[in-house]
């Protein structure tokens, strides 16, 4: 990644690379910090470590420095001390860097003799470790190599005027993708802290954000904030959605709220990388992605209603497991339906609700409920039931002041033509829906 910074720093050293709520960092300064971090890692003979801080400019310098000298960095999510210890044990991290510009913390509690700073050396392997969210079990470590990750930036055109919002965490693969795109374009990253939709909206308005990439759930919350505060609509040029299925009603709401913005959808995952973007403002992917051919970095096919991917820019493998074959096809866990020229996402295989032996996808139900007047946000999921194993349940965040009895009636009316097993049998009103990593949790609970 450091080569992306170096290219811009040579060309235009004073260009702003990162803007946070309290500072701006130029490409030259960021490169200098990255090179200093690289020297320190080499001097301390570090080969791999975990990082806890989420201060964007410091962590990005550390990330770039580590990438340049073949040191494997793993950014932990914001979790408790006990969970940090659990992650360190699970992923064999002896070294944890918790606070920026502080002494590294070694897991064995011993200090390390400081060696003289050495010049960074370039190593053939440039590993990076990304943790999955662990929403369906313990988090897994996804091993990447920077040479593969950087392949996805080859087609990025220079765009120094763009200011991209960092709505994802740096511990997330999507956050890494945004970083790579921004620095490959020589653009500016706007990194509010914390990175909730309310701060994202403030950054859009106050820090001149032109481009923003986030999950559909993030955009739902941001639209709710926008409606609630009544302030000016940010003048975005591009809106990107990814990380979970994108309901058609949400696309429509975004088009209405941001009529001048380009809207693109990204289909990507920690395991197989980014597969490209769709800019036609329609839900799902074009079926053209199924005909990319053997030479493509990423190819896709549909097997029994599930999307499969063969990726040469994806992971090396999971931590602690054998490497994966870059030419092998892998199931994504994303269930799809082919309609005319589109591949429409119907949810995750882990989210299927088994209602008395009938498999129900919660996402289309959630879309219907979300489109009912008075519903601000909805979540469909499986609720355990003694009669049928599970029933479809929905949680609804109502619009302030809405009549919940009317909403209940309207929800039942909106779903009455669904298969009997798919109709919501439990409707609850809540203040917030359950999310993880800015994604709605739909697995049975």
């Amino acid at each position, binding site marked *: 990644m450091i080569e992306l910074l170096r290219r811009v720093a040579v060309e235009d050293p004073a260009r702003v690379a990162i803007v946070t709520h309290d500072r701006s960092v130029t490409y030259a300064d960021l490169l200098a910090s990255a090179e200093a971090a690289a020297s320190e890692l080499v001097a301390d003979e570090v080969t791999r470590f975990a990082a806890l801080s989420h201060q964007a400019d410091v962590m990005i310098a550390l990330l770039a420095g580590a990438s340049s000298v073949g040191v494997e960095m793993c950014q932990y999510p914001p979790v408790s001390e006990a969970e940090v210890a659990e992650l360190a044990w699970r992923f064999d991290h002896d070294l944890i860097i918790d606070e920026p510009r502080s002494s590294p913390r070694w897991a064995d509690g011993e200090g390390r003799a400081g060696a003289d700073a050495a010049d960074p050396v370039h190593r053939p392997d440039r590993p990076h470790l990304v943790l999955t969210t662990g929403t369906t079990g313990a988090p897994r470590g996804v091993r990447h190599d920077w040479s593969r990750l950087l392949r996805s930036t080859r087609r990025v055109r220079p765009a120094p005027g763009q200011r991209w919002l960092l709505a994802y965490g740096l511990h997330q693969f999507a956050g890494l993708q945004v970083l790579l795109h921004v620095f490959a374009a020589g653009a500016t990253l706007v990194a509010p802290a914390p990175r909730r939709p309310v701060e994202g909206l403030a950054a859009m308005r106050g820090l001149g954000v032109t481009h923003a990439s986030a999950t559909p759930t993030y955009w739902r919350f941001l639209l709710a904030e926008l409606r609630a505060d009544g302030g000016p609509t940010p003048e975005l040029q591009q809106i990107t959605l990814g990380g979970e299925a994108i309901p058609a009603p949400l696309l429509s709401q975004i088009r209405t709220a941001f009529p001048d913005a380009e809207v693109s959808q990204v289909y990507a995952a920690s395991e197989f990388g980014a597969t490209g973007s769709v800019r036609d403002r329609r839900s799902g992917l074009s079926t053209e992605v199924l005909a990319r051919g053997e030479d493509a970095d990423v190819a896709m096919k549909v097997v029994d209603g599930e999307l499969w991917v063969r990726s040469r820019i994806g992971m090396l493998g999971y931590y602690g497991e054998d490497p994966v074959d870059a030419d092998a096809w892998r199931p994504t866990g994303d269930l799809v339906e082919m309609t005319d020229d589109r591949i429409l996402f119907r949810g995750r295989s882990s989210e299927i609700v088994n209602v008395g032996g009938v498999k129900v996808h919660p996402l289309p139900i959630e879309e219907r409920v979300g489109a009912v007047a008075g519903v601000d946000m909805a979540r469909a999921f499986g609720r355990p*039931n003694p*009669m*049928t194993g599970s*029933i479809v*349940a929905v949680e609804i965040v109502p619009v302030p002041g809405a009549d919940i009895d009317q909403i209940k009636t309207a929800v039942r009316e909106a779903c009455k033509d669904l298969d*009997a097993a798919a109709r919501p*049998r*439990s409707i609850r009103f809540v203040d917030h829906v359950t999310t993880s990593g800015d994604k709605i949790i739909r697995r049975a609970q």
Partner: protein
Amino acid sequence: MNVTPEQVEPARIEKAVTDFLSRLDKLVDGFDAQTSLYADGAGLDSLETAELSAVLEDEFGTDPFSCDEMPETLADIVVFYGAVKV
């Protein structure tokens, strides 16, 4: 919502069940505590029964359909809530 036993009065249980049946248009003429909830009475199918169990759990904090003997009538449900210590 968890409730104390004295809150689960038969009248509240009857209202919850008859409101549910009315919404499904299955409150048959002459429905009373001894009317079957299923084939020969209100005619609830398995999914509707599953929904009733969720409604009762939401209302009273526990669910009579999770016990060993499945209730057949409103009277059975009232007995369940009369015996259970929530």
